[in-house]
């Protein structure tokens, strides 16, 4: 960790609407740092999802488009196909990507679209008010699983990185987290790798980031970090699931 710490240029100097302790802010900053380090701000287009990060377009200092729920990978496909010189990334949550947008992400990944997806997995719908997501843990209480997720009724949580890594085409699939400083360096490395592969013209890259949602989990930010570490990380194991040279 360096001794100097400042807001990256690619991050707008504004307050976000995110709840206290929400890890979106950290992930935004890491993306912005990588964009600064690769010096691609002037040719980057981000795609905001529907969900808590829908207003992400206000928090970066480069071009942005805003998608419908789950459709960001299709939009990124459209942009990247007609303007391959642009750096394109989607920023999606787990309701957006793993539920309503599962078709779009699977097909974009499988076609090997040359964009990057930042997939924020906090095991719950945020913006709509804490409903059950495809990534919600067994027995996890949400507003639409008040007795806890019943896996007999709705199945087990989807492991998106493992699922997408089963496809032959994608270049890079990794899962990291930002819940503690010791993980953040690896998360940033993964984001930087994903963007670098895109810059090199390699096909689809995705970084899943295990995150917290103190508000909808009904916990303090500190307790959320502990819960994520104890409950999410054993199930959503960190690591590289696919690299351009073979499995991670």
């Amino acid at each position: 960790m360096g001794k100097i710490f400042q807001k990256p240029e690619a991050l707008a100097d504004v307050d976000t609407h995110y709840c206290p302790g929400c890890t979106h802010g950290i992930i935004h900053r890491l993306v912005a740092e990588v964009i600064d380090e690769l010096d691609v701000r002037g040719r980057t287009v981000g795609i905001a999802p529907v969900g808590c990060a829908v207003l992400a377009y206000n928090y970066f200092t480069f071009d942005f488009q805003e998608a419908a729920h789950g459709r960001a990978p299709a939009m990124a496909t459209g942009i990247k196909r007609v303007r391959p010189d642009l750096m394109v990334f989607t920023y999606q949550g787990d309701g957006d990507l793993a539920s309503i947008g599962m078709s779009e992400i699977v097909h974009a990944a499988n076609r090997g679209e040359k964009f990057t997806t930042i997939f924020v997995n906090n095991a719950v719908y945020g913006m709509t008010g804490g409903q059950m997501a495809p990534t919600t843990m067994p027995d996890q209480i949400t507003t639409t699983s008040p007795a806890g997720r019943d896996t007999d009724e709705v199945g087990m949580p989807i492991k998106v990185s493992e699922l997408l890594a089963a496809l032959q085409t994608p270049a890079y699939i990794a899962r990291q987290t930002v819940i503690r400083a010791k993980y953040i360096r690896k998360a940033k490395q993964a984001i930087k790798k994903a963007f670098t592969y895109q810059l090199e013209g390699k096909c689809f890259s995705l970084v899943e980031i295990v995150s917290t949602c103190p508000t909808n989990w009904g916990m303090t930010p500190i307790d959320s970090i502990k819960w994520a570490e104890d409950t999410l990380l054993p199930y959503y194991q960190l690591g590289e699931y696919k690299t351009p040279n073979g499995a991670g």
Partner: protein
Amino acid sequence: MAKVLMKGNEAIGEAAIKAGCLNYFAYPITPQSEVAEYLAKRLPEVGGVFLQGESEVAVSYMLYGAAGCGERVFTTSSSPGVSLMSEGISYMAGAQCPVVLVNIMRGGPGLGGILPSQADYLQATKSIGHGDFRMLVFAPASVQEAVEMTMVAFPLAEKYRNPVMILGDGLIGQMMEPVEFPDDLRSEPTNKNDWATTGMDKRGSDRPNLVKSLFLDPEKLNEHNLMLKAKYERMQQDEVRFEPYNLDSEYKVLIVSYGTMSRVCRTAIDNLKADGLEVGMVRPQTVFPFPENAVYEATAKSGCNAVISIEMSMGQMLEDVQRSVKGRKEVHWYGKCGGEVPTPEEVMDVVRSLAD
């Protein structure tokens, strides 16, 4: 340029290329799949982008993304596919993305059938998706007209920053006619750097462009809706197109008909004229904006007893005709659906019954 004999669907694909659009995203559906098949071969020859999406839903967002970064882009589909795109079309309208959409209509509702129909009139002209928006909608009656409308659709989509639809039917798509591609209809996008995500370096700006349809502040959304409304009113002012037919005569009945159906009506009108009965027709070439003044003025003729909307749907355009006639004359309807096209004889019988 010499005329070539082409199938409607293929001619539409070539027209887009000739207009200067080299980006096409689509999903196969009868009766328009020939456009995709044609362009799968043709676009690579001219350095264009062809991509078969995983669904019409995805295709509509590929269009949104591509148009949102300022590039010309279009798709073709047919009724059930267009319904699937309707979500994305709403976003395109909200985010003001210029996209050209071709609907080669088939029968419905649901899967309906694969034969020609005009069953999507209300969907196209009133509300193709959620929210409060309109599209410029062209209704070609020949392959040549489909070509020319496709070619002018691109600069108009860019002028209004709005989706534009070519509303054809299965016959327009499937029939072969001699066509030419007028060189003077070729154009280039002009204003994209003002708004599209072209990349700040590319446009030499340090100000990000934002393509979005979200306005959480009610006052701002109201302003946005008012701005869109003003845009649709400008379309109504400036973009109405129609063809008058036999309106110089002392017609007893006025037909309003568009697309393939209007060709049958034209034959019926010619036959009735030979029999001594004059019938006039207003043929909308744009169905939004609808040529309401033209229809209203055409009902002023003193000998005109009745107005009839003849369409391959169960009385959809009828609502626009009634609105335009403003109660001045009785308004009737005749039509068939499901791929059945009324014959000239059927049209002649109906019109004769209204003439007295």
